[in-house]
């Protein structure tokens, strides 16, 4: 097993670094849904001067940052049931309208976490199908097929050192061929017809080193 942390030449991005990296690529004016975990952190790192409108499945457009503990509004939670705020211009609507926005291709972008992403864009992020465990899906399957673009943000490998970029997903699919781009702790990769095209790597990491840590076919940016 190779450790991502012990190599001196390069350092993997941590959660905040990953969130910041994703946020850099979101243009002014987009409507964006963020999944639970690292994707939620993306909202905190949108570069100054860009107006990005965040959507939440439970009927909110214009999510703002989390409140101070003494200023919590118990009526205002996001899809992860965290307390949030509403920015000026924000709005509330019911669940059918909220998923009209999602399923009707009105969102410019959805950012989700994942267990695995396959090189054909298949996404597995809703269940590990552990026997006896109650499965839960939430809005993941709707977001995966409904947003105009789906980006995944995740560690490059599991804690056990197994590549999360794969040739074929082992876990049950959330949706086939839906992921456009993956931000891992080591690289940014686009899903193209031959596999993953590497569009960026953490400083000091070589393409060969990245490939050796990835259980999928990588192609360098031409």
């Amino acid at each position, binding site marked *: 097993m190779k450790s991502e942390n012990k190599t001196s030449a390069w350092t993997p991005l941590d959660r905040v670094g990953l969130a910041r990296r994703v946020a850099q690529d979101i243009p002014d004016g987009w409507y964006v849904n963020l999944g639970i975990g690292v994707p939620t952190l993306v909202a905190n790192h949108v570069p100054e001067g860009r107006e990005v409108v965040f959507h939440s499945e439970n009927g909110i457009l214009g999510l703002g940052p989390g409140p101070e503990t003494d200023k919590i509004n118990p009526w205002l*939670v996001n899809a992860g049931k965290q307390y949030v705020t509403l920015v000026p211009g924000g709005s*509330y609507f019911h669940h059918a309208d909220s998923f009209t926005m999602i399923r009707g291709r009105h969102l410019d972008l959805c950012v989700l976490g994942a267990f695995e992403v396959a090189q054909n864009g298949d996404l597995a992020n809703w269940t590990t199908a552990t026997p006896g465990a109650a499965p839960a*899906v939430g*809005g993941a399957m709707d977001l995966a097929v409904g947003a105009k673009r789906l980006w995944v943000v995740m560690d490059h490998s599991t804690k056990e050192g197994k590549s999360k970029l794969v040739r074929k997903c082992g876990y049950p699919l959330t949706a086939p061929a839906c992921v456009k781009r993956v931000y891992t702790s080591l690289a940014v990769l686009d899903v193209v017809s031959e596999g993953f095209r590497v569009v960026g790597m953490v400083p000091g990491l070589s393409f060969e080193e990245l490939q050796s840590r990835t259980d999928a076919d990588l192609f360098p940016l031409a």
Partner: protein
Amino acid sequence: MIDKFVNSVAEALEGIKDGATILVGGFGAVGQANQLIDGLIELGLRDLTVVANNAGYRQIGLARLLQLRRVRKIICSFPRIAGSTSFEDLYRAGEIELELVPQGTLAERIRAAGAGVPAFFTATAAGTDLALGKETREIDGRTYVLENALHGDVALVEAWRADRWGNLVYREAGRNFNPVMATAAALTIVQTQHVAKLGEIDPETIVTPGIFVNRVVHVPYGDPLIML
């Protein structure tokens, strides 16, 4: 004169039978008609099918209904009880049936029921385990799954304000599934925090017009529980 207000939770719930399918609004701890659910518990109703996004929170309302084994089946997108593993325990023990439905498909199946649409095609879940055994169709080169409308015998709705015609306004994220479910049941029962005089709610802001509502009970319980 139309007056949908009733005097008590018990009166609001009159006529609900064992085995009923009950649509329960709410998302997390917000916008769930807990006092109506407590009323179901007091009535001793059992063998229920519950349609809800989550399985409740802690040991109150919906979570308690489940923990008391009053629910035979739950139709749900995210069957977890926040702050408790009791849903998983029931599921593992085979004491509850689960129909897992993607959240948007759940909302749309309920919307379709309210709108008189018997079924619809959606791309959600196509090519996944949740579409197994379902009819699919290719339309313009994309695969879609046929999903059926989801009706309730009863809908339990939480509103912020209501008038005697049953016109409703919700509060912030408390809206969620409530207005959709209000349209999709044979009997729609509302608990409201505030009572408005007829004509007092600005018609431009009414979210659920009274035609969808059968009974309203005034339950001024305050704010949802803060869970950190």
